[in-house]
């Protein structure tokens, strides 16, 4: 087990290195010139060249990558010999000259809204999706099942920007049930936080819940047809125990995989939902960075998202060994 974890961690590190290289190379071949973006309208070629040198953009790509890697572990100073050097703290993911801010700081400050959005929506969709899925499976073919499946299909088909705009239009603008969203930290103003987050949570959760209803239902139906469920009934266990203890345990285990990866993916930013509800999260940061061609920020967010997904993969695999006794990690 320990050796398995160590080996997995090593491969995670390798994977991240490779990934960062690819991302870095990919962005270095883009036609935009980061040095050009560092100064505004009153720019002269001299300033651009000076900035290019200060940013290290005049170095060969691989050396730039090396500087980038070094920055992650030891930090780096842009323009050490210039009159106004810029310090980038460990772990330095780069410096956005567009915003005049370290990428790490930008990501840190934009992470909380994304985190709360993902966690809240995750809880809502897991509870609703799994409960509805089980209910549907137990009433297979009856009108309750058909209704739930119909609702799930609609929820799955509606794009989240459409749902989100509908929610804003009716609930916020027309009926004025909720004030206009304005993100604050939950520790600062819990009420305003909840008022802001409730709609994004629901809208984001609807999309995922629709998928999880179908997933849970099919898992449960498959499990209910298993021989060991028949054995449980043959033992004389009440149906409540057959479903609750035997069917759920086996039926819901595979959902762990999907849930872990979906949550990780969301932690990298829910671009559409954040944009619609003007949440200052990673998704919003990603969009505006793309608009501004703010390469260091884009590279940073891409890497962070990749880290979440890779780590989630590892966690899910380890979790599986805990919940399924047949899984031997080796």
């Amino acid at each position, binding site marked *: 087990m320990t050796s398995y974890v160590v080996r997995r961690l090593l491969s995670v590190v390798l994977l991240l290195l490779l990934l960062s290289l690819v991302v870095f190379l990919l962005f270095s071949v883009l036609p935009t010139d980061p040095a050009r973006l560092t100064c505004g309208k009153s720019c002269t070629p001299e300033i651009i060249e000076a900035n290019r040198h200060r940013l290290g953009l005049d170095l060969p790509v691989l050396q730039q990558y090396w500087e980038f890697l070094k920055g992650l572990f030891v930090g780096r100073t842009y323009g050490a010999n210039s009159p106004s050097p810029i310090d980038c703290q460990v772990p330095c993911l780069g410096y956005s000259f567009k915003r005049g801010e370290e990428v790490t700081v930008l990501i840190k400050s934009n992470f909380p809204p994304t985190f709360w959005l993902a966690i809240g929506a995750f809880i809502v969709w897991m509870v609703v999706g799994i409960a509805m899925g089980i209910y549907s499976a137990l009433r297979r073919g009856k009108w309750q099942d058909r209704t739930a499946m119909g609702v799930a299909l609609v929820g799955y088909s509606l794009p989240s920007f459409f749902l989100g705009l509908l929610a804003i239009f009716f609930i916020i603008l027309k009926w004025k049930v909720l004030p206009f969203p304005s993100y604050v930290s939950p520790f600062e103003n819990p009420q305003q936080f909840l008022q802001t987050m409730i709609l994004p949570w629901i809208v984001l959760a609807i999309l995922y819940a629709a998928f999880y209803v179908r997933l849970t239902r099919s898992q449960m139906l498959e499990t209910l047809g*298993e*021989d*060991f469920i*028949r*054995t*449980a*009934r*043959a*033992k*004389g*266990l*009440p*149906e409540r*125990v057959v479903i609750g*203890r*035997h069917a759920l*345990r*086996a039926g819901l*285990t595979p959902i762990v995989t999907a849930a872990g990866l979906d949550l990780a993916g969301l932690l990298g930013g829910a671009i559409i939902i954040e944009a619609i509800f003007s949440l200052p999260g990673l998704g919003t940061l990603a969009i505006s960075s793309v608009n501004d061609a703010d390469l260091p920020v884009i590279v940073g967010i891409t890497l962070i998202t990749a880290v979440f997904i890779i780590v989630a993969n590892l966690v899910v695999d380890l979790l599986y060994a805990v*919940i*399924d*006794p*047949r899984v031997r990690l080796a």
Partner: protein
Amino acid sequence: MTLIDTPAAPFDASSFLSVNDLRVQFPTEDGVVKAVDGLSFSLERGRTLAIVGESGSGKSVTSQAIMGLINRASATIEGQVVLEGQDLIAMSNEDVRRLRGTTMAMIFQDPLSSLHPYYSISRQLVEAVRVHQKVSKADARKQCISMLDRVGIPSAEKRIDDFPHQLSGGMRQRVMIAMALLNSPDLLIADEPTTALDVTVQAQIIDLLKSIQQEFNTAIIIITHDLGVVADTADDVAVMYAGRVVEYGSVEGVYRRPQMPYTLGLLASVPRIDRARVTRLDPIPGTPPSLIALPSGCAFRPRCTFSAEVPDNLCSDVRPDLVEAADGHQVSCHLTPEKRLRNADAMFALLDGRSEAGVQAATPSDPESGDPA
């Protein structure tokens, strides 16, 4: 035609278990599947009944109908299953549940898939004890260990904490048997208990079932398509075809004097080392009929090589009743008893490789003639 026209298998509610005119039908989009279509038999304590037949003949559905394991919402179940004077079909689901595991218990074909993969043996066994008995977990565990010991699991107090996948196939089936026996059931239904096991392990499991029967005076229904298992274990045998019993009697009687052409076919298709090698294995031509659209008359008629010997299209027009052919031996066939016995003799002669004439009589050279297609 000298059929004795008394309905056989008289319904006798004084038996330990009597099944009377059991019908199980599943409505499907293609039509109603008549999985069990008028089944009757009775069984006493300490006796073993084997139900034999091809896949889809209704063996497993019968056993699950007795156990109350068929979802009543998805099937129509009619008839009577009277266990110790109580009709299980008329009882509420909850009352039948209380009998499951206590009065009647069941062993399944594939012990790996029949045990829960995520729970340890101890958890699955203790649960089976505690659902019916008010005992502490520790006491239940003791009971389970001694039962595992009884069914021949070495160092049971250690193995009880294993998970199903850590045991061998034979050990798993022993666990299943132990699980079934925990609350000392009076009726044990074994649905193909040895099919998924090695031959050597099969013999051990059969021996175990026999010794359990002697110890607890259990009534056993063993469902199988393995005629060797039947000969080894059963007192009586019911041959099922398309949801009905087509031949019923003592194992001795049915094996010595098979009368229904289908039974003949089953016996002829068993490889035997002591028979002459000159004969090929003789499969029954054709395939089992669709249970949605059964052939008119005798369901076996399209595959029967002897139906031409019956006059007046009787085989295709009239469904034969199960009637007494010899003492305690019942057959559902329109052939005259003389012809049936002649066919049986011919088959045995063929299998012994003794008689050329027998070869002609028992196996027509053109197997297509009996094919329903």
